[in-house]
């Protein structure tokens, strides 16, 4: 067929122009395909990682979060521990600050795990029944997610004993001057004792000086004695010696000195009788098995935690004297209720002294359309409850995965639109310039008897063929990019923090879970079809633009241009 050969010749023999157009269209399409695939990969990763509730068979989670204002109590409806606000939170997290002397004799080594509810206050498990009785609720399950402080070290000496030595003290004091009255009394006393004080009024003329000052012989000694006796009490020289006894003092040290090291992890109590709905479910078991329904001394460990602490299926975990065997590794979804270690609920309640208490209720609505309604009902029934939907939980997740996902949502579309538009513009411009350069050729064809329609058909056909080839090229390139992303896929992380740091708690109540996700770019048929369609559209736009210009050419004008 002559027209097809003509078309092929135009593409093959105008190689540079064809290649430039193909590369332009192809890059545009490849960009669209690659971005769409990446976006899809991110969505998939996000769905797996950032849709935390679906993975645990749940539509909503109900928790009791401390409110910042103190006035409103938690007591209502039998839900909550009563009292109010941060005080409860502080009180329930205080156990870690208890008397360390209870851990053993000072100097002995101890290992102890403290379990704290963090910012998710506990409440009676019976609240779950209240929610289960709501119309649109199909099923509920309770869980206990605690912040664990693993402490290890030497029990500190809390009381210090100090022994003091016996000590002799010498005390000396200066005396005040005698008053006139004191003087008179003294005089009287001395007279009685036969000692005269003052100017001699008798025959003993030798004077006072003799007797008083130096004196001679016994007479002098007697005087001194009398003098001593006659001094007023306050004027006798104070000179004393005190000896204190040896003493033992005991003093409570605050803070005690110790070498205790603390590591924090999170621990979840799972209702093992409900393997498809709970803070962790069978769906998340990556190795080993789920907890047995009997609920023995078994534990599940998150893969990331297991890797960090070299734990595997069969490893033992000793928690305050109870040995748990790890029966499975799990990959829990990020968000609110994920933990590093999972125990049967009853066991954790015992360990943490939280008998019949839970701090999360998982709710499965009868149908997904009821979720909003259920959320409202729960909030009405339990005003203090914090009800979180999948989206609420996903919103708390951050990290490069979320950034990339947001980027792909915000920028990806814009970028692919820009790429597509740029590719189309390029194709259209090239088609126009090609028609411009082929004015004489098209004029000649008209002179040869080609009708308007035939010329337009030929030009449009060329552009369409370019579009098809560009589409194929672009799809190939896009798939290549996607395959490359799959092969060398960069790792993206997502992390979720639950609870907030209450400064006055002294302990951090923030639980953080991080998950690494390898980026994939799954190429779907739809994506390919869209990419191909875009190229075709680009070709058609370019073809129409070129053909319309060709159609306006008058044969005579076309021929005249070369003269």
């Amino acid at each position: 067929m002559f027209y097809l050969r003509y078309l092929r010749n135009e593409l093959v023999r105008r190689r540079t122009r064809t290649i430039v157009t193909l590369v332009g269209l192809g890059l545009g399409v490849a960009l669209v395909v690659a971005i769409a695939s990446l976006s899809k990969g991110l969505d998939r990763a996000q769905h797996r990682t950032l849709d935390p509730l679906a993975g645990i068979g749940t539509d909503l989670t109900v928790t009791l979060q401390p409110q910042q204002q103190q006035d409103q109590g938690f007591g209502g409806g039998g839900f909550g521990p009563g009292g109010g606000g941060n005080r409860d939170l502080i009180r329930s997290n205080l156990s870690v600050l208890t008397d360390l002397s209870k851990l053993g004799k000072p100097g002995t080594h101890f290992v102890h795990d403290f379990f704290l509810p963090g910012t998710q206050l506990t409440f009676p498990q019976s609240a779950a029944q209240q929610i289960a009785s709501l119309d649109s609720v199909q099923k509920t399950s309770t869980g206990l997610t605690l912040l664990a402080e693993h402490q290890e070290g030497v029990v500190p000496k809390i009381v210090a004993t100090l022994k003091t030595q016996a000590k002799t003290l010498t005390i000396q004091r200066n005396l005040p001057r005698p008053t006139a009255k004191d003087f008179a009394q003294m005089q009287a006393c001395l007279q009685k004792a036969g000692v005269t004080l003052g100017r001699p009024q008798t025959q003993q003329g030798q004077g006072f000086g003799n007797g008083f000052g130096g004196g001679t012989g016994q007479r002098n000694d007697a005087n001194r004695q009398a003098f001593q006796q006659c001094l007023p009490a306050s004027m006798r020289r104070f000179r004393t010696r005190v000896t204190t006894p040896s003493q033992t003092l005991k003093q409570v040290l605050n803070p005690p000195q110790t070498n205790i090291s603390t590591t924090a992890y999170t621990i979840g109590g799972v209702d093992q009788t409900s393997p498809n709905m709970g803070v962790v479910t069978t769906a998340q078991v990556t190795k080993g098995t789920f907890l047995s329904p009997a609920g023995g001394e078994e534990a599940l460990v998150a893969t990331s935690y297991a890797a960090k602490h070299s734990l595997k299926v069969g490893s033992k975990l000793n928690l305050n004297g109870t040995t748990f065997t790890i029966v499975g590794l799990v990959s829990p979804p990020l968000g609110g209720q994920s933990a590093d270690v999972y125990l049967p609920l009853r066991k954790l309640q015992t360990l943490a002294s939280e008998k019949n208490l839970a701090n999360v209720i998982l709710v499965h609505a009868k149908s997904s359309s009821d979720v909003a309604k259920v959320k409202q009902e729960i909030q009405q029934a339990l005003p203090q409850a914090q009800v979180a939907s999948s989206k609420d939980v996903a919103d708390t997740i951050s990290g490069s995965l979320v950034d990339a996902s947001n980027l792909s949502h915000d920028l990806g579309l814009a970028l692919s639109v820009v790429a597509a538009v740029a590719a189309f513009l390029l194709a259209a411009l090239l088609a126009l310039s090609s028609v411009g350069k082929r004015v004489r050729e098209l004029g000649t064809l008209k002179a040869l008897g080609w009708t308007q329609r035939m010329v337009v058909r030929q030009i449009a056909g060329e552009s369409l063929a370019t579009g098809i080839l560009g589409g194929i090229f672009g799809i190939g390139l896009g798939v290549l990019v996607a395959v490359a992303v799959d092969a060398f896929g960069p790792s993206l992380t997502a992390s979720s923090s639950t609870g907030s740091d209450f400064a006055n708690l002294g302990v951090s109540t923030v639980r953080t879970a991080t998950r690494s996700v390898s980026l994939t770019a799954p190429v779907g048929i739809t994506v390919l079809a869209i990419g191909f369609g875009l190229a075709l559209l680009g070709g058609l736009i370019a073809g129409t633009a070129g053909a319309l210009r060709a159609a306006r050419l008058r044969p005579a004008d076309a021929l005249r241009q070369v003269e």
Partner: protein
Amino acid sequence: MNLYELKDVARYFQRGPTTVRALDDVTLEIEPGEFVALEGPSGSGKTTLLQILGALDRPSAGTVTFDGSDLVTQPDSALAELRLRSFGFVFQQFNLIPTLTAVENVEAKLAPAGGTRDRALELLAEVGLAERADHLPGHLSGGEQQRVAIARALSVEPRVVLADEPTGNLDSATGGEIIDLLANLAAEHGSTVIVATHDASLAARAPRRVAMRDGKLVDNVRAVPA
């Protein structure tokens, strides 16, 4: 009956504020089978007249009757059909499609008219280019290109072959060969030939000469058959 009857044909072009009269009151008759030389210097209106005769352009005024029908009032599609089946063009620049081989260039005219590739090859053989059928125009000499153009023009057995300075880009020897080829083949195929040229010696060889100056016919000589 005359093949062409032109009466008071004028063609004006608007070039900025001035109106150029490319053709001015041309009245002309051409009989079937004639070999007509349109002679005149550049810009005398030869090409314009040729384009009106070949239904590539419409006159601004006057009537053009071809084979009894008025070309002025025909729709574009009818003119395209006439160009396809009744006219063959030969240009000064050869105007071959650069991406098509010699035979494909002939097919460019034959294919819309329903002709085959074999017929195109036959025509190339007639102009002596059987071996060059698969060459691109860029690989052919000027004379060879013009031969391809002649084969293309004659491929549909047109009533009229219109040639605009067909030797203008050729040396005089080749030009002579081309004119001879054109004249002989046209005679064989029974086509009327109208050649526009400014080459007086070439025009002198034509049985009928129409001389033009400034868009007007100044001479209209029919050689007396010897």
